């Protein structure tokens, strides 16, 4: 197994993980502070991607489109929060699951009606080619940019949460909501802002992943599951947990898919290995999650005391 292969797969895992982090960060805040399971988070990711595609077509600039999509999705998210989701905070988890599942159905169809089942979104032409990282490894420049953006957001988020007043309120709300209310925090406004912020993060992820995957109806569902796995592993309400969890999931999933089949071929018959390999690789992160829940039921970095 060459060093180059290992390096490349590590970069792949990191890239995947950082995008998951963008989704997981918003999700974990909403869950941690508002105690709400929001399945519609994946729909915001989808809306972000579609908006980015439209703006890219209109303005001709990829980065401008990302920025506009960010704002647009945040507004949509806040509108959603104020109109519908607000009523669910007091309800039980089952109701939240079902209501937000309903929103997924509605969002999918609305997007289909407005845009159609799919829209194209391309990488900015400047980033369509590779960049040489080490001799022998020309890595996609676009993916490197994704990693850069992901890291930048992570740093900004850390600064925002740890160093600003707003961030302090967020942490207070996550760790003990009743106390925060008692201390006079305007919880309603805080929730709306947090939600809008989470939606903005989703939009960045959707817009950046759009050119690699496909901007299509239903794209939120597959990544939503992974985002939940991440926050459960990381600890609900903790951004640090979301980052660690996301990178862990990204790397384990990528490495598993890349190396497990080959590893199995060493020990098992070829056809058995090629049957088991991909299946086991897909299951790996769920096994990881189950194992972590078993030993640390609150996740790795629980926000609540």
């Amino acid at each position: 197994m060459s060093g180059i292969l290992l390096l490349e797969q590590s970069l792949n895992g990191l890239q995947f993980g950082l995008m998951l982090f963008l989704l997981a960060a918003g999700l974990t805040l909403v869950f941690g502070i508002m105690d709400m399971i929001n399945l519609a988070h994946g729909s915001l990711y989808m809306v972000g991607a579609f908006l980015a595609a439209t703006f890219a077509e209109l303005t001709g600039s990829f980065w401008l489109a990302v920025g506009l999509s960010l704002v647009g999705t945040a507004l949509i998210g806040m509108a959603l929060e104020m109109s519908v989701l607000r009523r669910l905070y007091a309800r039980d988890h089952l109701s939240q699951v079902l209501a937000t599942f309903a929103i997924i159905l509605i969002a999918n169809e609305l997007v289909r009606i407005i845009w159609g089942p799919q829209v194209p979104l391309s990488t900015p032409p400047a980033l369509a080619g590779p960049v040489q990282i080490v001799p022998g490894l020309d890595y996609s420049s676009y993916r490197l940019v994704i990693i850069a953006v992901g890291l930048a957001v992570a740093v900004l988020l850390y600064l925002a949460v740890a160093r600003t007043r707003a961030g302090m309120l967020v942490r207070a709300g996550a760790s003990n909501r009743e106390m925060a209310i008692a201390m006079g925090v305007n919880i309603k406004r805080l929730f709306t802002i947090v939600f809008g912020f989470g939606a903005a993060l989703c939009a960045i992820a959707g817009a950046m992943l759009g050119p690699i995957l496909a901007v299509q109806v239903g794209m939120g569902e597959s990544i939503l599951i992974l985002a939940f796995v991440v926050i459960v592993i990381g600890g609900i309400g903790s951004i640090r947990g979301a980052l660690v969890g996301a990178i862990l999931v990204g790397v384990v999933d990528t490495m598993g898919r890349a190396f497990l089949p080959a590893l199995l071929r060493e020990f098992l018959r070829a056809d058995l290995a090629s049957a088991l390999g991909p299946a086991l690789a897909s299951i790996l992160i769920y096994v990881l999650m189950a194992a972590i829940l078993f030993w640390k039921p609150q996740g790795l970095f629980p926000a609540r005391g």
Partner: protein
Amino acid sequence: MKRTLLALATAVPIVFSAHAADKVKVGFISTLSGPNAAIGGDIRDGFNLAIKLAGGKLGGLPAEVIVADDQLNPDVAKQNADRLLKRDRVDFVTGTVFSNVVLAIAPQVLESKTFFIGPNAGPAQYTGAQCNPFFFVSSWPSEAYSEAAGQYVTQRGFKNVVFLAPNYQGGKDAANGFKRYYKGKLAEELYTKLGQLDYAAELAQIRAAKPDALYVFLPGGMGINFIKQFVASGMSKDIQLVVPLWGSDQDIIRAVGDPMLGLFSLGHWTIDLDNPANKRFVAEFEKEYKRLPTGYAASGYDTGLLLDASIRKVKGKIEDKEALRAALKSADFKSVRGDFKFGANQFPVQSYYLQVVAKTADGKIAHKTMGTVLTNRGDAYVQDCKMK
């Protein structure tokens, strides 16, 4: 309440009209949503064009095409087929894109003694012992493209090749076909999940295997993403990419553009084939739909021509299944591919061409025929089929 009754009423088929052959109903189950929607759309457009050019008729009978979207989901396809067979009572079922859908719905279509004409996927299962008088494939036997690719890769002298396909029937057939004709070393045999869009992990493995050529069997949206990511990874200058016809078709060319120039592909049809039927087809398609046709559209169009000729041959008496089958089998029409005939197992026997993606005289990007790789090729299993 009234709407419910109305809905129920319209759902009930008109019971007392015994099925008189005053029109022909075609059930068209295809993939019309998701990243591969373009394929289904192309087949449908080609098929509809054939009907339009025949004056809205097939073989002289007014044609009604009932379209259903299978969403690349065999479950949904089965329900569509159920509805088309039991409620709408169609005479033909066609339109299918992917082999997993074909395998899911074929049993019920064949059991109801309705003719199934696969315009795209032609799974290898039905070429041999399981061949069935009601099962036709108008496109190509599933392994054929990959056989041609294996032949070409061997001819070019490539010695170290990587194979990539999704992990489903079509992918397996591709592997069998490719390995039958490719005589060199297979550095890696990679299988991806059907519908997978991010190929970063596989690209890393390809890079590590250092092949001199790469044969990739990825239809639709999967192919688009792979080629874009392949180019972005920098490997396209060192590794010769070989794909089946539709791995580099107009949809992908539209999405990827110039980086596709120089890509080799194998197909049963090229846009510049020099025969009257093809010239008419390409011109009419461009006029009607404002875009260049793909191999899928050509297949859909040919299927329409096949039905038209066969129904005309039995003079509209489509209830006579024996005669209709004989008519279908004789394939008495001028295909856009040139010569076309069915083998004993009702799969096509035809030639496969080498194509390269190049700029045309008027600056567009399209395929150019470079030669013939396999001539009069059927498939490897026809001897197992016991039909006459």
